[in-house]
């Protein structure tokens, strides 16, 4: 039980979901995706944040903790508190886990302390954005290697809010075999996390990409998740025009900015286009369910 009587998070009314149904759908989805792919194990990269913690809890509930491998992949600048939170998830679930420090891999490319890495002299000057993307893609590399070794599928941990505004790294944190929480806004992730038993400290803390000490998503973006989730819900799910959104009380500057973030990140949500040349082209006019007869499924 919590000693803190305040609500764990702010929940806008329109974003309230039936968490019992969401729990059933997502756990059955996880089982079905693994079954259909012919796997009975899964791999989740645990950051210490709420999204990956929720996915780990859901996977453990769906297939049993002994079939879930959690991988902790800190960089040298990652917060020790994040690692402690991730370790707490592992302890609570009683699942196998591995720790893979990604510092030598990332620094091996960018260099460190003035010593060039594989990226040469210019990479020493790489921006925080480039470094953050490289960290996300390094974690993807580790997860997919563990996927092969552990015979488990990589489960995605991106939420709907970050996917819609493009706050993800292409082929990095967004890379996965399937994603059970990608249609839940951050506010809804929090609701479901509270139901399935994610530790309260993880639900309460400010979300962070943890790329440098003290970083938080909300400080970086300049708006709060409840505010952003509400706006995206009305803009995307309920198809309200910019004029209607402003009439509802959303700040015009916010509507404009978020609208542009959604539009400019469209490419991150789609499979890259293939130049149409032949009679039948995958994804264009060659369309099969991915788990068709003859695939590896059971």
């Amino acid at each position, binding site marked *: 039980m919590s000693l803190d009587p305040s609500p764990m998070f702010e929940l806008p009314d329109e974003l*309230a979901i*039936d968490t019992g*149904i969401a729990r059933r*759908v997502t756990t059955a989805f996880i089982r079905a995706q693994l079954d259909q792919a012919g796997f009975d194990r899964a791999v989740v990269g645990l950051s210490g944040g709420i999204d990956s913690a929720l996915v780990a809890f859901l996977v453990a509930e769906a297939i049993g903790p002994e079939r879930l491998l959690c991988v902790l992949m800190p960089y040298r600048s990652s917060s020790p508190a994040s690692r402690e939170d991730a370790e707490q998830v592992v302890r609570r679930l009683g699942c196998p886990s591995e720790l893979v420090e990604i510092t030598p891999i990332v620094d091996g490319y960018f260099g460190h302390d003035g010593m060039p890495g594989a990226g040469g002299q210019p990479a020493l000057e790489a921006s925080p954005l480039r470094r953050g993307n490289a960290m996300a893609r390094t974690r993807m590399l580790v997860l997919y290697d563990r996927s092969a070794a552990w015979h488990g599928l990589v489960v995605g941990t991106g939420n709907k809010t970050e996917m819609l505004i493009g706050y993800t790294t292409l082929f990095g944190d967004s890379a996965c075999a399937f994603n059970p929480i990608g249609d839940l806004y951050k506010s809804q992730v929090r609701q479901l996390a509270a139901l399935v038993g994610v530790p309260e400290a993880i639900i309460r803390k400010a979300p962070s990409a943890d790329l440098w000490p003290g970083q938080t998503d909300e400080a970086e973006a300049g708006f709060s998740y409840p505010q952003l989730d509400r706006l995206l819900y009305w803009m995307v799910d309920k198809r309200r025009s910019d004029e209607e959104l402003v009439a509802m009380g959303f700040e015009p500057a916010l509507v404009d900015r978020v609208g542009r973030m959604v539009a400019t990140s469209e490419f991150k949500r789609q499979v890259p286009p293939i130049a149409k040349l032949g009679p039948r082209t995958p994804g264009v006019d060659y*369309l*099969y*369910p*991915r788990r068709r*007869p003859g695939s590896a499924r059971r």
Partner: protein
Amino acid sequence: MQTLRIALAQLAPQLGLLDANFTRHHELLAEARAAGAGLVVFPELSLTGYHLQDLAAEVAMTVDDPRVLALAAETAGCSVVVSFVEESADHRLFIAAALLEDGGVRHVHRKLYLPTYGLFDERRFFAAGDALRAVPSRLGFDVGLAICEDFWHLHVPALLALDGAQVIINVASSPGRDVAAVSAGGLGTAASWRTLLRTYAQLTTSVVVFCNRVGVDESVSFWGGSMVLGPTGDVIVEGPLYDEALVVADVPLADIRRERVGLPLLRDERPELLARELGRIVAERAGLAEDGTGLPAVDG
């Protein structure tokens, strides 16, 4: 009083695996018959799975396919509704529901309305049916068949009732969505279906049977919640959400007569009025008659 026992096979078909699905149908049919069911209903595309895309042509069957006939052969003294991709002689592919009775194929309904919006893409892969008929059944009255989206068009249950159906059956592969806490039962899709099924049962004063699948195809999870409603709109039985189940209901058939005598909506229907006004609307839409609809009002 005569009672009809209805069994709804709320199953999760395996996508594209005909053999496995036929086996499951034989098993569930035997189980339902052993439980005394006189009418057994399977969901939309129960024999093939829903999210077929280009697999549709690969799993398509003609109505006289030996596997369909073998299933029909097990329906002596029983009525069974199954659903599959039907290929016509001219190689159109339909989403079809077949009424199997007394060892044969009594009727085939081809899905009339193919949703091609939102998460649906049916018109890309399938042809739409052109006929809607109530059919006499061994049960002693006419039954009407409809498939999922057909029920999102008001006149489908209305026409089936006008044509004589007393039991109207909808087989569905309805994907659950809108998991909002504000919805009754927590699922927007389920709340919508409950409302329209109840409305149809009341307005057609008929027994309404709804069999929806469960399971997961790609992104979507089908929600089940199969139902039988009496002619007053009361829910006689409701299946579980998301789980496989053989849902059994006992329907007192005298309720249909009682309701139709007490609430003679069908007696008072005006099909000639409907036909006349529809004829006018069709002519106006085709540009064959002047259409006053939607013109701006002109002052003075």
